[in-house]
């Protein structure tokens, strides 16, 4: 029993142990900040303020610098996403092939602008710069699946299907 207690992270949340491991791997060096934030987001899903404070103290960096980096890069989320994510590619190839129409269609259907999450917390609509599958334009990434050659109707159909599936929790 004593052993189990020893293994527990002081905060009571064992996810921090995974984070600590990553920090140790980088020898708690300040220049590994971006790597550590990637790991933290991977574990916790998003970067809340307390988590940023934790990282700042562990890497011995001013919180301003950690917050500055977390807000500078688009990849880091400071707010949690909905149950499902719909990432619509807005790269040049997709734009030329009509991604804008898909954007309007989805926004109208779900009464939610891109960059936000629907009120029922089911779907987050996100735009991406380019997912690199330009040959299949226009492209969207639904959770982790890349879907190509979309049109407005098809995309709504796909998102509806997505809403009805339960997302597997990635351990």
């Amino acid at each position, binding site marked *: 029993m004593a052993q189990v207690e020893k293994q527990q992270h002081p905060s009571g949340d064992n996810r921090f142990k995974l984070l600590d491991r990553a920090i140790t791997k980088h020898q708690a*060096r*300040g*220049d*590994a*900040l*971006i*790597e550590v*934030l*990637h790991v933290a987001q991977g574990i916790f899903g998003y970067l809340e303020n307390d988590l940023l404070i934790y990282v700042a103290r562990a890497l011995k960096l001013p919180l301003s*610098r950690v917050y*500055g*980096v977390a807000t*500078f*890069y*688009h*990849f*880091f989320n400071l707010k949690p996403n909905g149950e499902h994510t719909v990432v619509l590619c*807005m*790269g*040049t*190839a997709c*734009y*030329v*092939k009509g991604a804008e129409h898909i954007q309007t269609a989805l926004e109208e259907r779900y009464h939610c602008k891109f960059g936000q999450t629907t009120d029922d917390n089911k779907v987050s609509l996100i735009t*991406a*710069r*380019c*997912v*690199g*599958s*330009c*040959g*299949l*334009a226009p*492209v969207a990434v639904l959770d982790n*699946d*890349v*879907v*190509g*050659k979309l049109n407005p109707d098809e995309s709504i159909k796909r998102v509806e299907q997505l809403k009805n599936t339960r997302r597997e929790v990635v351990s």
Partner: protein
Amino acid sequence: MTQEDLQELSEKELQRQGEKKHRILYCSAAGCVSCGGEKASAALKAKIKEHGLEKECEVVGTGCLGLCGEGPLVKVQTDNTLYQNVDVAAAEQIVESHILKNQKVKANLSDISQPFFAAQTKIVLENCGAIDSESIEEYIAASGYEALAKVLNEMQPAEVIEEIRKSGLRGRGGAGYSTGLKWGIVSKAHGEQKYVVCNADEGDPGAFMDRSVLEGDPHRVLEGMAIAGYAVGATQGYVYCRAEYPLAIERLKLAIKQAEKLGLLGNRIIESQFNFRIDIRIGAGAFVCGEETALLQSIEGKRGNPKPRPPYPSEKGLWGMPTLINNVETFANIAPIIRKGSDWFLKIGTEKSKGTKVFALAGNIRNTGLIEVPMGIPLRTIIFDIGGGTAEGTEFKAAQTGGPSGGCIPAEYLDLPVDYESLLKVGSIMGSGGLIVMDSTSKMVEVAKFFMQFCMDESCGKCIPCRVGTRHIYGLLDKISKKKATQDDMVLLQELCTMVKETSLCGLGQSAPNPVLSTLRFFRKEYDELLQPVEMYMGEPGVEADFEK
């Protein structure tokens, strides 16, 4: 691992491949995976197993096979047959009839004599779609790491630099600076530690060349970096890769591990005195980090704010030490040049632009995908022969190169040879290799607005011309597209573009007005049609724009 061991490994692998009666390749790059390639390859493997053909038949996942728009692609390497749009049923058919009965599956056959394949020259992509992208043995069998062994055993660092300089290779990231000269500067710079950095932050929307090289042939990039490290005297390398490319990162990690295990990276490489380590740094989604000084800041774990140059990174780069930064494609060219000699490379391309260029062909064009063509090839050949022209019933209007930093090339310049100087002359740039074709349905003001919005969002905010200038240019373009602008706004637009171009700190701001300037130059009519006559305009003065969208 000695040079002889390398030779032996290569022969062993070739022998192993020779024993197989059939080699079936399936594209395992992102394009084909996202249209059901994994299901097709699983079906292939299951069918092979079902017929007990595992011994004589191998199924191999390779890099990009090129014709991304027709994926998933499967190739029977033994008799060089390419199949397109391979779904599960087609995959089963390929085994049942092609492999077992030697009858090709006609419905899915792709014509490999068509110009899309015939008009290409492959150097960077020679292994993409020919070898297993996750096997170091197959890379070695395809003359991999031969150049590194040659350099370490037979050449002095200065000789390596001279060879690269003689080849006339220019940076493939866009600006086109001589690679040999850059290496020379870094090798002469003083510093106790030097670094080699590979820029794999392919932020240009509509470009996926670097991704395909990293996914299909990661060892080629590592070999190029190691040779560069030897030439300039660096012992540590970094690959800075976008977080949006998880598959490329995974393959790179695997490749580094394999190379370290065989003593091709790490300490005392190929029994020489040369040590070289490579680490991966993952970006976090900032376009500006493709700019070299911003990229270095990001590797140091800071916000990607560019720094004024000079000092150039070749003198004061990562942690203040001399740093060599080259693009993925530049590094991918190094091994073949060393292996085959600079004279061979000099024969390909034009007088000032040597070698080949990889383009990601996309947009309103029939054959979308990844192509590699010799420098100096006319744009017409790329778009109409290789690309197959625009879709039926639409007319070619413009080709966009260089992404948000480049420009649109109109139909009257279709016979332009594609090289660094010619593209610059018409107000575009070579860029990293995105080539987007637009047909008559694209509105050029909207296109300019699209790119300006991109630059506005991606501006890091450090210098005022870029931070505020791009915002106002976007505002003006928005006003024009909503038919609220007058001729006065056009004058202001041009003034602003010139100001941003000439006073911004880094490449992002300096090139941000390019799409606007080039569309103004070639498609002025489309702007003028949207303007209000001066006397009719009764709206409020000043810029009104909807920035929220």
